[in-house]
């Protein structure tokens, strides 16, 4: 069990792939923003890839361990300390009753850290997943972010021989400040919705992330609508060319444009709405979106084919199976 001493900005219970199968009933999948960090953490402590951990956005938090165990900390480096001594990341670390783990705040690169206990976080599944949808206040820990004095339960697990296991450095994800997201155009692309020039711009420009970027949408800087849109209006969908008769969204990862503002729709985003979706970030790169630092980092979209995306999924699966992943 882990006690929250200071809840910081936002700590949520999340798993992967989240709550699949309910989009047609208005429920987005939720799930970890950086599924790669969560899943590598699970590998390090010997969990299943689908086990839940704590997603820590921004930092400024502190935990006390209420029982002995093993944990791994992955994701963004927030200068973690264990009993005021620097604690290694991407490594299984033994913790004892009374130990204190502190995270400072996000620094040069990345915005979310993951605390993964061996055994996984024990909250009841809601509709098949332990993930929190913070926008709808359901799932995870009472449908909310963790606060001071909350006690998070951990599933029992034999932890012998786990402490000291590490991620092989050759598999360490690269953190950036201008994130490259491999992206597939569609469903609302050129020539019928967006101009060729607009799509070229989309696939060549680095977009600054807005301060208003969260678990539903990562909002980006505006595009120039006079150059971007291939049509005058949205017909019955509405007066702006970004409008469309309400349709289902390709989330997680859909690049949605409301007015002239692009947003990457992520974990807790809307499942359906009346705006164009011009592209989608490929599944293998979804993890990068939530590591973008709001109001500071940028992201750019790299044109990618379906074949390349499918290949990238396979590579990811093979990496998780690799014999030298954890050393």
């Amino acid at each position, binding site marked *: 069990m882990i006690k929250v001493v200071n809840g910081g900005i936002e700590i949520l219970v999340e798993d992967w792939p989240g709550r699949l199968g*309910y989009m047609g009933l208005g429920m987005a999948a939720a799930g970890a923003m950086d599924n790669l960090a969560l899943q590598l953490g699970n590998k390090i402590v010997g969990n299943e890839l689908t086990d839940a951990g704590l997603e820590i956005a921004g930092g400024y938090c502190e935990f006390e361990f209420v029982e002995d165990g093993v944990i791994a900390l992955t994701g963004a480096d927030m200068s973690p300390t264990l009993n005021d001594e620097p604690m290694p990341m991407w490594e299984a670390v033994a913790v004892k009753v009374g130990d204190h783990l502190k995270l400072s705040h996000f620094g040069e690169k990345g915005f979310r850290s993951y605390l993964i206990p061996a055994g996984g976080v024990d909250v009841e599944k809601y509709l098949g997943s332990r993930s929190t949808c913070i926008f709808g206040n359901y799932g995870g820990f009472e449908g909310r972010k963790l606060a001071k004095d909350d006690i998070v339960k951990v599933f029992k697990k034999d932890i012998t021989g786990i402490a000291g296991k590490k991620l092989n450095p050759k598999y360490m994800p690269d953190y950036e400040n201008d994130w490259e997201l491999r992206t597939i*155009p569609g469903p609302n692309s050129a020539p019928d919705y967006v101009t060729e020039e607009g799509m070229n711009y989309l696939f060549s420009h680095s977009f600054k992330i807005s301060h208003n970027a969260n678990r539903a949408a990562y909002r980006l800087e505006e595009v120039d609508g006079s150059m971007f849109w291939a049509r005058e209006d949205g017909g019955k969908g509405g007066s702006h060319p970004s409008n469309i008769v309400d349709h289902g969204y390709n989330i997680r990862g859909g690049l949605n444009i409301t007015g002239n503002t692009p947003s990457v729709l992520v974990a807790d985003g809307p499942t359906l709405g009346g705006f164009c979706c011009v592209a989608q970030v*490929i599944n293998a790169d979804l993890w990068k979106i939530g590591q973008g630092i709001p109001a500071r980092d940028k992201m750019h979209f790299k044109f990618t084919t379906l074949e390349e995306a499918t290949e990238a999924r396979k590579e990811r699966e093979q990496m998780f199976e690799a014999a030298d992943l954890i050393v």
Partner: protein
Amino acid sequence: MSKYEVILDTLPAEGDRVEILFRKAGDGFIQVEYGHEQRVELLDSFRILAADAKIKAANINGLIETLPSLRCNMIHFDPSVISPMQIIDKIKDIEESIAGVDDMVIDSRIITLPIAFEDSQTKKAVELYLKQVRPDAPNCEDGYNLDYMAQCNGCTVDDIKKMLLTTDWYNSGCGFWPGGGFFWPMDPRCKMIVPKYNPPRIWTPEGAVGIGGACLFTYTTATGGGYQLFGRTIPTFQFSMKHPQFKDGPFLYRPSGDRIRFVEASEKEILDIYDHVHDKTDYVYDIKESQIVVKDYLNFLAQPEVVNGATEFAEKQRIGSQTAPKL
């Protein structure tokens, strides 16, 4: 051909079927779009629903979920199990097996919902909006939205209430918010059209019934929102799943195809039902299994009094929309 072209395949128009476009929407999503025109046509939805039921029943290996809307269906699948072209072929086969829309019979329950017009909770939402968001909002001039809705449609408040109570409302697909359906009037003489709040509300009570454009929504939980409010109905969602109606999931509506009809009730009756849904869990919902026989519906639409009534109302609406203040 542009590298941004996303139409992977098409099925040509035939009989009353419009051309069907299969659009790339990422590495796990395909959008099936019906026709090229942004139109609001329930017959499109009937067809999508008939195909969607068959897609779901086909047990396609690798299909994760579908997300139908008024003129599209978003298909979510696992590309490591089934390729986009394979899934498109399956959907094409299903489409080819569907006879003309005239012969369709669609499963569609009728759910009767009591509504209290201008109840104290939705009044409070309007008051808060005036206080916190937009004190000079022309849609809230008399402390509520019904007068504005009447102005926009060139009719009286009584006409507005009567239209809400007269027509059945058809759900083209749930989405946006957990459990929320997008409902359209089946009787064209009741097709009110109103602009949405600008800017949106911060708070709307659970059960509020609102309309934006021609689309009606029942708020499943307390949330923000932008639809003009009629009043309040009974719970259409229950996170806790305590009430037997919700034992298999928190949703009252099916993903699509349900019809709702409203009956007027007092606020006291509505509040009493809340108690019997959420606390005593013994309220019996009025839900009838039923079907839409499309041929009968088309005959209804073709009746002279329906055609003439719809034309007359559209003319009143045209004048009303010109004189009502813009939001």
